[in-house]
């Protein structure tokens, strides 16, 4: 597989999660209200898994602007708190590719595969 250029995202901010909550309609307060996250035993609010998958989808479009996505599958592996700096890396061979989102210490947050036409 050929490695794809790594995409470095700006450190995650709480407002990013507020905007994603409103846009997606997923208002689970674990993503926006620190007190609710603390009650759940988390040190801070956490990103929606689907927010990271949204980033991953845009990364694929950036890597392959003239191809059409036909299949996209991910596994959510770890929680992401604000302040995290995330990196999107990938590799592809023909119509198939793999994608990983990890943080600056290498913890994998999302791992997935995709097919393009």
């Amino acid at each position, binding site marked *: 597989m050929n490695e794809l250029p790594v995409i470095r995202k700006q450190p995650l901010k709480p407002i990013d999660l507020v905007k994603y909550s409103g*846009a997606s*309609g*997923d208002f689970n307060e674990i993503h926006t209200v620190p007190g609710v996250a603390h009650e759940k035993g988390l040190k801070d609010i956490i990103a929606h898994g689907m927010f990271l998958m*949204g980033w991953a*989808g845009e990364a694929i*479009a950036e890597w392959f602007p003239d191809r059409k996505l036909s*299949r996209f*599958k991910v*596994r*959510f592996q770890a929680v992401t708190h604000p302040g995290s700096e995330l990196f999107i890396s990938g590799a592809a061979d023909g119509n198939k590719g793999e994608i990983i989102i990890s943080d600056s210490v290498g913890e994998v947050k999302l791992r997935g595969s995709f097919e393009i036409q």
Partner: protein
Amino acid sequence: MTEISNHEIIFDYSPFLIEEGKIREFAKAIGSTNPIYFDAGMAIEKGHRAIPAPPTFATVIDFWNERDFYQLFQQIGLDPNHVLHGEQEYEYVQTLYAGDVICAQAIVKERIEKKSMTFFKLETIYKNQREDIVLVNRSTLIERAAASE
């Protein structure tokens, strides 16, 4: 591991009109600057018939629906406070466009109990106003028993 037969659980979402403004808001929220989401002329230049929906837009159809994802949870008996999203898969059959009216139906394909967790495998099929299947969505939700927290 116990598998409980639950194949009869079917949930119909309400018909959902995909609006241009909602696509723009969603695209901005995921940090996209791709002009096809913001400019219909650019989308058409790229071979689309209107502004397309981003790959994970189905979330909007599920959560902003008149009969939404939380009502589905209620029907399955899932407590949204104890649910984790484990896996997500999309099979793109046709592009979803602004102006399309989407009808989605979710089916609980499998419910597996494993230690203190229950795994729900859901499959949702989205059809457009022409009754064409446009998208297949498979998700795995994990419900943790309250006692384990």
